[in-house]
């Protein structure tokens, strides 16, 4: 990998910034930007509704992008790929669909403390009992806790493949197996996983999976809900509008995926996400994984050297995320200090209040890498962290 050349593909990184907020949004790759711009210039016509050439051309582009997503996550069919505005909408959409299609009376939903709020609130707002698997004090998910909660009454297990706080990858195989043995559906939130490892929905055997375009070097406002076709076909759509209905008076819906894609989609976003997937596949997920492992290891070791740092991430089996707190310094102050040096990190509760309550911290600093980061950037971060520590020490008795 020629890093200098690769970074040239990211106009955002030409700014004088040190970008460590990739778990929130990855920089957009040039392939995505060019395809999106090209689409708006030449092909931005509504699909399925026009018999003219432009509409058909546009339809072709969307179909092409759907095929790219299908292959990217190894879905069985293109019709299993539903385009949404992002992982949050995907989770809300499937939650509403399940609640209006199934009777959850007497059933429970199993989830975990590791979930992002977007995989928490839609379930709590439903009418089923929600059981929450716990994590250790260091934020590591207790797999046994998940397995113990799954019982005959479990209608659904909804779980992340990778924590947005700790970066831990979750070993899902046994969990999914047990959920299926008990007759439950399984949703996998792959938002933090998909940029770092191959998501193979068939191998994983999940029933649903969600992710966003902006976490895989693609556009914001676009995401995917994957659902096994035989299940999706049995569910009611939760959103209604044009281009999803066969017979309005009889409420007969169009086949998949249209019945779950009411209204005009973010067509340019879909095309852009397709471009980002092409770009990622060109780099090779294995190469990305290798580079990120080395970078994370370097970052982890360097941050660990700073006295008073408490780590909430692990080096092994995890995404390139390092979350930490520093004794005597508020995490938001650290982020603000870093911002004065144009270092971009995330601080706060990271949309994971249940997990932060478990690990007993008010807020954290999260440094999230991508394979585009450099060791030099990490060195700059470390020296800046040392500077704020010195500033505070100067005043403390």
């Amino acid at each position, binding site marked *: 990998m020629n890093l200098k050349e690769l970074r040239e593909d990211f106009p955002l990184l030409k700014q004088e910034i040190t970008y460590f907020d990739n778990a929130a949004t990855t920089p957009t790759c040039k392939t995505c930007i060019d395809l999106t711009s090209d689409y708006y210039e030449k092909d931005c016509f509504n699909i399925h509704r026009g018999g003219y050439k432009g509409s058909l051309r546009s339809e072709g582009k969307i179909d092409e992008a759907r095929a790219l997503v299908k292959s990217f996550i190894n879905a069985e069919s293109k019709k299993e790929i539903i385009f949404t505005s992002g992982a949050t909408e995907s989770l809300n959409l499937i939650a509403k669909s399940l609640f209006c299609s199934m009777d959850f009376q007497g059933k429970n939903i199993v989830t975990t403390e590791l979930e992002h709020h977007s995989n928490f609130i839609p379930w709590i707002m439903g009418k089923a009992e929600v059981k929450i698997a716990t994590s250790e004090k260091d934020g590591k998910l207790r797999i046994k806790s998940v397995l113990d909660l799954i019982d005959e009454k479990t209608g659904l297990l909804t779980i992340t493949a990778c924590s947005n706080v700790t970066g831990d990858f979750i070993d899902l195989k046994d969990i999914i197996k047990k959920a299926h043995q008990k007759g439950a559906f399984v949703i996998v939130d792959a938002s933090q996983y998909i940029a770092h490892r191959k998501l193979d929905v068939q191998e994983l055997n999940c029933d649903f999976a969600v992710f966003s375009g902006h976490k895989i070097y693609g556009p914001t406002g676009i995401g995917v809900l994957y659902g096994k076709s035989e299940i999706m076909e049995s569910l009611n759509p939760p959103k209604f509008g044009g281009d999803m209905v066969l017979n309005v008076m009889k409420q007969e819906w169009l086949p998949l995926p249209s019945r779950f894609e009411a209204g005009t989609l973010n067509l340019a976003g879909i095309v852009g996400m397709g471009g980002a997937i092409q770009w990622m596949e060109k780099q090779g997920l294995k190469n990305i994984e290798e580079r990120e492992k080395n970078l994370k290891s370097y970052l982890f070791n360097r941050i660990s050297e700073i006295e008073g740092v408490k780590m909430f991430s692990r080096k092994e089996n995890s995404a390139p995320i390092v979350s930490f707190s520093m004794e005597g310094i508020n995490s*938001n*102050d650290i982020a*603000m200090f870093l*911002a*004065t040096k144009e270092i971009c990190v995330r601080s706060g509760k990271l949309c994971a209040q249940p997990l932060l309550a478990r690990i007993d911290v*008010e807020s954290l600093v999260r440094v999230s890498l991508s394979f585009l980061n450099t060791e030099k950037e990490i060195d700059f971060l470390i020296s800046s962290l040392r500077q704020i520590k010195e500033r505070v020490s100067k005043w403390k008795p």
Partner: protein
Amino acid sequence: METLISRQEKIIKELDSLDTELKQFDYFFNKAFLFKEGPRSDKYLIEGCISKAWVKVWSKENKIHMEVESDSLILKGLLVAMKEIYEEASFEEVNNSEFLLMKSIKVVGLLDEHRMESINKILKIVIDETQVSNRRIK
């Protein structure tokens, strides 16, 4: 004689003379460290603030008094600056003036939507105190 306006102008002048975010960061940091600890009671907790902030506002003889505290040193520094502006200000001064400090702030983290919302909440507490007290007097 010092007034709310003159105290605010003094702080704005100091902030404007600091040409980088980093210098302003240090300015608020120092203000926070030089100030004694304020009240950390749930009664005074400002709801919805990203970092915990406690603000106690009361009045005596038609004048505002404040105590402030925060987990975040930079936010505490800003709250101390607010206290410096409003402490001992008369109700009339509070109601006839505008809080202009934020326009001179360069530290980006202090200007995000949630923090601005919290600052507005604190200003409302100060203004409410003048109204409530006025009603009490009447």
